[in-house]
């Protein structure tokens, strides 16, 4: 079942790449060895691999190791990342990093919120200061603007 979906997904990506190549407006000078050749090759390669995997899944020769997948934990890590992406600019690097860190520790089964929280705060503040002060890189200050 999973193999079938993966195969079909790959074929869909191959179609997107081929469509993108077809829609290019290529000046006739470059028509022969132009920017379309490689996208077509990659598209064919992906479609063929997708078809092979779908066929293997259909004939039950696409072997996947049986394993317990904790989809809930995956969702928590993913949610942590989505939150961080959306909060990085409005709240700033430090709070966004703390939220991400806490989400990951929770997903990995830790329930020692005090310990994890202290580590998260120290890690986020120290890296923020090291990056902005020592390395001179820009990170969004957010709500802590003017504090550090």
């Amino acid at each position, binding site marked *: 079942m999973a193999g079938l979906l993966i195969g079909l997904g790959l074929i869909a990506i191959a179609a997107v790449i081929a469509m993108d190549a077809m829609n290019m407006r290529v000046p006739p000078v470059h028509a022969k060895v132009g920017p379309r050749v490689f996208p077509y090759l990659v598209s064919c390669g992906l479609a063929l691999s997708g078809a092979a995997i779908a066929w293997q899944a259909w004939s039950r020769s696409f072997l996947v190791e049986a394993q317990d997948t904790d989809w809930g934990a995956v969702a928590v890590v993913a949610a942590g990342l989505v939150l961080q992406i959306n909060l990085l600019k409005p709240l700033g690097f430090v709070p966004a990093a703390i939220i991400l860190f806490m989400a990951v520790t929770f997903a990995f089964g830790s329930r020692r919120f005090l310990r994890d929280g202290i580590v998260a705060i120290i890690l986020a503040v120290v890296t923020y200061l090291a990056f902005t002060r020592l390395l001179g890189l*820009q990170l969004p200050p957010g709500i802590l603007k003017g504090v550090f």
Partner: protein
Amino acid sequence: MEAFSSLMDGFATALTPINLMWSLVGVTLGTLIGILPGIGPALTIALLLPVTRTLDPTGAFIMFAGLYYGAMYGSSTTSILLNTPGESGSIITALEGNQMARRGRGAAALATAAIGSFVAGTIGTLLLSFLAPVFVKLAIMFGPAEYFALMVLAFATVSTLLGASMVRGITSLMIGLAFGLAGTDILTGQPRLVFGIPSMLRGIDTVVVAVGLFAVGEALYMASRRDLREAVILPIRGSLFMTREEWSRSWKPWLRGTFLGFPFGALPAGGTEIPTFLSYYVEKKLSKNPREFGQGAIEGVAGPEAANNAAVAGVLVPLLALGLPTSATAAILLAAFEQYNIQPGPQLFSASGSLVWGLIASLYIGNVMLLILNLPLAGLWVRLLSIPQPLLYGGILVFSTLGVYSLSNSVFDLVLLFVVGIIGFLMRRYDFPVAPAIIGLILGPMAEAQFRRALTISQGDPSVFVTHPLSLGLLLVALLVLAVPAVFSVVRAAAARKAAL
């Protein structure tokens, strides 16, 4: 002898206090990330790229190379004491090494791994010093058609040799090539796979893909596997000074491992995993008491650990001399060269001689530092293993997102990182190897450039690839690499069907 005098100049570069410091930083960081599961040399170098942008390139590469060597030393400690490999090159070390630790001979296992790594690393670096210039002479004969054929060969070997099945390897390669297509076409300015998003015109940065596949994908996968969370750390027991018997059982596997590892690293065969497996089977076959294998045979640690260090030296030969990466870490190193606008290949040895030879010389020094860091200080490093897994992965993800964001201060890069991370998780979950994708991503655009250059020179005649003898030869080998395993699997399936009837 020419190489010898260049090497002496290299030592002059490497022995300056500042470069010695970079070497020490590299090997220390390498040992650290080698020991920590979940973070490897490819990921670390990718994360360091934004930070090292303003650094002197010689110092940066000395650090990166030390890091790559150091990761191979450190990962053996994790394999032996935790029974989970720190890196993929130490998977096989866990078999015998962990058994030795269980039987109270953990210290001897650590010692044979560290000394074997030193022996192999030093011999490998010697071979690198004298073979790289030979490769450079060879590379001068290469035109665009030959380079393209060589890259096709690399694509064929990495996708067949790595991973559970050929289809999965090729799929991974194609995914990498597809990532490489995105962005503005260099020759015509044509936007490809941009979908009207302005940020996509720059293309997808190598660092985003590497961090997405190695860090985000890996973290999502480890979160999904509740059963992999608890592991027992064994204490180091026994003496770090090996007995006479242990020495006499170790030295031959060290040398055999070295001479297996080096050529496999240099061939476009995906780096350090395959030679370690081969070394293990060779040692098992040659052993006087093969029954001891599986219960803590020291040969099974000595051979593979030598093989993975020698392979790293081997990987550097085609990377420096031809600009051809044969492992995921080498692919990231190639991206680092691009960041400094340095083109690896024959020109590198003439244009940036002091960088290359300083880098090679630093490897001799780094090996000595690593032996000292890893042998007497093993007990100190082991404490790293007691970092709780939730904190470790929390830290990895915070640093990964930070590294990707600081590439170009773009939140869009973080969105891409998330998407690539999901793809990486699915690849890990359904057993697709990741290294072919990284190599496809880096080599894809280069292969396309060489392909189009060759066709422009031949005025559009595609026969250039088969009329140049060298190019034809390389393409035929690539075809063979793809065909042989396929034929084998068909024969095996037919035999299995016959057996079932």
